[in-house]
């Protein structure tokens, strides 16, 4: 069974540009989660999508947004990039969230560098 995949592996942008990161969940998983891992800050919860809807959001500004497609893959968009957006962005997937425990499986991440 294929794991969670993310693309691209690395992404280099300049301040003010937009970045788009992609995630494909494990087959059969309907929930996708996004996390930001900035240097020295650990992992911060960004967004949770399930069945195509945004279900929960972490403490991030609106320029962080995303969507989930009918095939349950997901995009994370970061607009008006700032230097402090440089981080490893991790995607995780699980069977439907919101009820009881469903293990989150993580992808390898996309390393975003903002110059």
């Amino acid at each position, binding site marked *: 069974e294929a794991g*969670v995949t993310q693309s691209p592996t690395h992404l280099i942008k300049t301040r003010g540009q937009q970045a788009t990161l992609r995630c494909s969940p494990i087959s059969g998983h309907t*929930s996708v*989660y996004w*996390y930001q891992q900035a240097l*020295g*800050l*650990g*992992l*911060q*919860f960004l967004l*949770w999508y*399930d069945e195509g809807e945004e*279900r*929960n959001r972490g403490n991030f500004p609106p320029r962080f947004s995303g969507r989930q497609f009918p095939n349950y893959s997901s995009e994370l968009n970061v607009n008006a990039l700032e230097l402090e957006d440089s981080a490893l962005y*991790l995607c*995780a997937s*699980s069977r439907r*969230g*919101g*009820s*009881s*425990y*469903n*293990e*989150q499986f*993580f*992808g*390898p*991440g996309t390393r975003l560098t903002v110059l």
Partner: protein
Amino acid sequence: AQSVTQLDSQVPVFEEAPVELRCNYSSSVSVYLFWYVQYPNQGLQLLLKYLSGSTLVKGINGFEAEFNKSQTSFHLRKPSVHISDTAEYFCAVSGLNNNDMRFGAGTRLTVKP
């Protein structure tokens, strides 16, 4: 909301020595607790989890953790570490709906020969 504090940012230890990585959490409701490991340039892998039942939880690679509700702690232990255990370890907590997982800042375990 829940929160997690990992008390040590770095833990150096010699090979075959025991190790304990400390984690304390804060929550007003019942929680699930997790330990994840991240090897260099890789994503996170679940080491072990506490959902309910026995407070001593055994995970992969010989790790175990004990849930202590009175001390709101979930410390990770291994009786004898290997060089290959060198990695970043994250403690995490979530509510029982498990859709809002909060991570600690991480502990870098370095095992020296």
